[in-house]
């Protein structure tokens, strides 16, 4: 059964990855300049430029170029940076750990807290419900990079609790690693946790009004079990869906957060690549992000299947 879900996800994910790579390719085709001009430099002769175009395969029709890229990508070869000629896959792999640390920690923390707070507020309502509402609005409306900057100002510059900049590898010092990712993760969590809580509560309130809930109560099931066992389990699908969406948002968020906190991850690389028109690097990052999204959805599906072992999952 598990195999089937993986297949289903992959069947959804592969076209998605194609779409990602095709979109970036079409963008390149629309681009006014080209990589050869950049690589050749300003004082290159026309002949140098032409031979570089030939060498980079830029004279091939677009589908052929795409095919070459695709074949390369299948073999883990994502081409070379047009800025410094480094191997794209290699430089992405070096930076992957930073980004993964951020998004995994942030997703787990906001998922756990959000689901907890959301279900308790569905059960008790009142004050907690209001806090969740306000928090969700704030999480939507406040620019996340601004939240990050304020955290830096308060916790790093004023109180000196955390470093404002930089990253330490987990393998070199777990404690310093934790301190270096604390503020970025906190920024990402603040931006999303209330949204998860709100969606959880809404899903739970839906479930609390459902006929099966009335039937549980009518059969004398204690309220605590009705809420935290039955309704929570039944709300798994929308809750996990929102955690998945939150993950996507967090991935986008790393672009800003890594820049603010000076972390050497994929996001900050994407920003510098954009500034330098380094298309192969951007394409590679888009592909990595796409793969991460597909993987996370797969994990969420498996979790869902464990919680809700019905035969057909729609």
């Amino acid at each position, binding site marked *: 059964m598990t195999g089937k879900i993986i297949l289903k996800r992959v069947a959804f994910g592969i*076209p*998605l990855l194609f*779409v990602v790579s095709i*979109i*970036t390719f079409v*963008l390149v085709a*629309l*681009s*006014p300049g080209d990589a050869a001009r950049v690589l050749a430099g300003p004082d290159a002769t026309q002949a140098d430029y032409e031979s570089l175009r030939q060498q980079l395969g830029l004279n091939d029709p677009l589908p052929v170029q795409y095919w070459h890229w695709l074949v390369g990508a299948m073999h883990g070869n994502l081409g070379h940076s047009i800025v410094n000629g480094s191997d794209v896959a290699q430089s992405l792999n070096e930076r992957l750990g930073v980004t993964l640390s951020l998004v995994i920690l942030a997703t787990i923390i906001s998922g756990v807290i959000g689901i907890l707070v959301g279900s308790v507020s569905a059960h008790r309502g009142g004050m907690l419900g209001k806090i969740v509402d306000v928090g969700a609005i704030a999480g*939507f*409306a*406040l*620019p*996340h*990079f*601004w939240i990050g*900057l*304020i955290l830096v*100002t308060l916790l790093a*510059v004023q109180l000196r609790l955390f470093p404002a900049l930089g990253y330490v590898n987990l393998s070199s010092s777990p404690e310093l690693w934790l301190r270096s990712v604390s503020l970025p993760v906190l920024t990402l969590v603040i931006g999303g946790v209330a949204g998860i809580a709100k969606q959880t509560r809404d899903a739970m309130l*839906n479930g609390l*009004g459902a*006929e*099966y809930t*009335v*039937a549980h*109560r*009518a*059969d*004398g*099931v204690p309220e605590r079990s009705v809420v935290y066992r*039955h309704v929570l*389990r*039944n709300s798994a699908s929308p809750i996990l869906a*929102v955690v*998945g*969406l939150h993950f*996507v*948002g967090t*991935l*986008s968020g790393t*672009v*800003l957060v890594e*820049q*603010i906190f000076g972390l050497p991850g994929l996001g900050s690389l*994407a*920003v510098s690549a*954009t*500034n330098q*028109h380094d*298309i192969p690097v*951007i*394409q590679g990052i*888009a592909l990595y*992000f796409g793969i991460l*999204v597909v993987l996370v959805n797969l994990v969420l599906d498996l979790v869902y299947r464990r*919680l*809700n072992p*019905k*035969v057909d999952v729609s």
Partner: protein
Amino acid sequence: MIQTETVPPLSARRAAAPPALRRPGLLGRLLGKPTALISGIFLLAVAVACVAAPWVAPYSSDATDFSATSAGPSAAHLLGTDNLGRDVLSRLLFGGVHTLSSSALAVVVALVLGLPVGMAAGYLGGAWDRVIGWISDGIMALPATIFLLAVLAVFPHNLYAAMLAFGILVAPGLAKVVRSVVLGVRQEQYIDVAKVSGIGDLGIMRRHIVSKLGGAVVVQLTLVMGVSILVESGLDFLGLGPQPPTPTWGTMVSDASQAIHTQPWLLIPTGGTIAVVVLALWFFGDSLRDAVMERWMAPTHRRRATARLSRTTPQLTAPGRRRLHAGDARGTVRRDAEAVFDVQEVTVAFERDGVIQPVVEEVSFSVRPGETVALLGESGCGKSVTARAAFGLLPAGLDVQHGRLRYDGTDYDLQSDTSRLPRGSGISVIFQEPVAALDPTLTVGRILVDSVRRHRGAGRAEAREIALGLLDDVGIHDPDQVLGRYAHELSGGMAQRVCIARALAGQPKVLIADEPTTALDVTVQAGVLELIRERQAETGLAVMLVTHDWGVVADIATQCVVMYAGQVVESATVEELFTSPRHPYTRGLLAANPAGGHPGERLTALPGRVPAPSEWPPGCRFQARCPFATEECAAAAIPLEADNGGRRVRCIRWKETVDVAS
């Protein structure tokens, strides 16, 4: 990323929000909301001020004041200055044009692409629908930022190109909302209601689609605008937008971030502006959504109906609650020592705008062991609400105002005491939708075994044996197999049998059956009724049956309680009711549905409809449909009177009208 806000289905809110009397239009509603007004005016002011920046800004965007660099707020510089001594307020105004216009571009693109595609999907359905659903899910699953970076890598510093791309990325989300609104309106219940009331015409549907769609689209667009501003300023912040010295909101935050060691104040006006504008958009969209929702709650035909029945409505004000029709039923209740289930003077109401509106008033009835009492009436008469109040599980928004229940010698206050009720062990319930009443994530076995263990304290293995026995008792031939199934794997009839087995797991004395056969196939209805009768004969179960089906009444009931507009209008034994009905309403029902009708025949053929609680007239509630109505009937509330034999009727002219009829 945008999380599309789902609108709760109409049915979820219906119970809690019956129509009020006045129905202002959308704009009127919006203007009546302070948040909408304040946020709307604020947004307008910001937009105008930014566009008019060359005229209204106190300084030009790059005028430097070296006498006041990195200064806090002052009279000369209301929001302070940056490290070059440039006025922050002026730069915010000049920068706003760029931020707002490029965000508006995304909104326009989303609208131009999303609206037609969504409408097409909604109308055409089928493959179109699936493709659009697939694309929008796919795009939702991708981090948009990386695409925008790719666009900016190709078109350096061209934020308009990036925001155009963003508009394309969010368009499928908008299309999805549009699609669901169009689909929803086409299928929605109130259109059916409008048809039934004879006012259903295409005009209604067109009006609903336009007003609903307009509302939903504008709500969605305010959200898109908010997200676009955040995305746009994020890209600016990263230095991917216009280059210095051109101000934008994002670059100003970025400048401020360079100065957090020296002048942290700068973060407040810069990032704060973005936050406040997006907040205002959110609040505006939110109150707009509320206004739209309220309008949906008020289908047009309601207004007409209300106008027709322009009478003052009996209502209670929240603080000084006054008993309605006090003494109405008092002293006339059948005080029955033999009854195992005795409901006394239950009043249920909802509260809206500080007014308590009853929906069920002073309803009393009792059930003896082995007896089946049918609570009978058209939809909307309050019979299901009465039943739910009697086991203490009213839907949200409805509350018991007062009422008592005497179960098996113990008294319960239905307003405050319901958690003590022996649910499942003394009083059990079966529902109209048996499949929906079974938890979709649990197997039949889990549900039954849990129930048996809870009520009988049995161990797991023993409980399983008992569960198998219960399934056998309700006529399921392969109980072993059924134990392993989920609700969606059962037919309606089978599911109702499972529900009955669950109801019997706690060996109750009373079974409340809320329209137990209504949702079932006609072919299995008789079997389910037969099963209830069988269990009753064996255990002396008292059954309270809610139904609007004469066939069911004739088949299984021994006593009848007829309800109309929240009140009991007649109660009698089934024989009495069929042979000598007293209330004109009962007679009307019987005339329209010949006695002993077949299961499945509903009480609908009577002309007119049950008035909604807000339309209840002061006198007899049946007067609008009663052929015998006189002025006296309209003058004052009609009491429920009992004769010596315990028959009750709520009609001042019943004797005369019976004579006329016979």
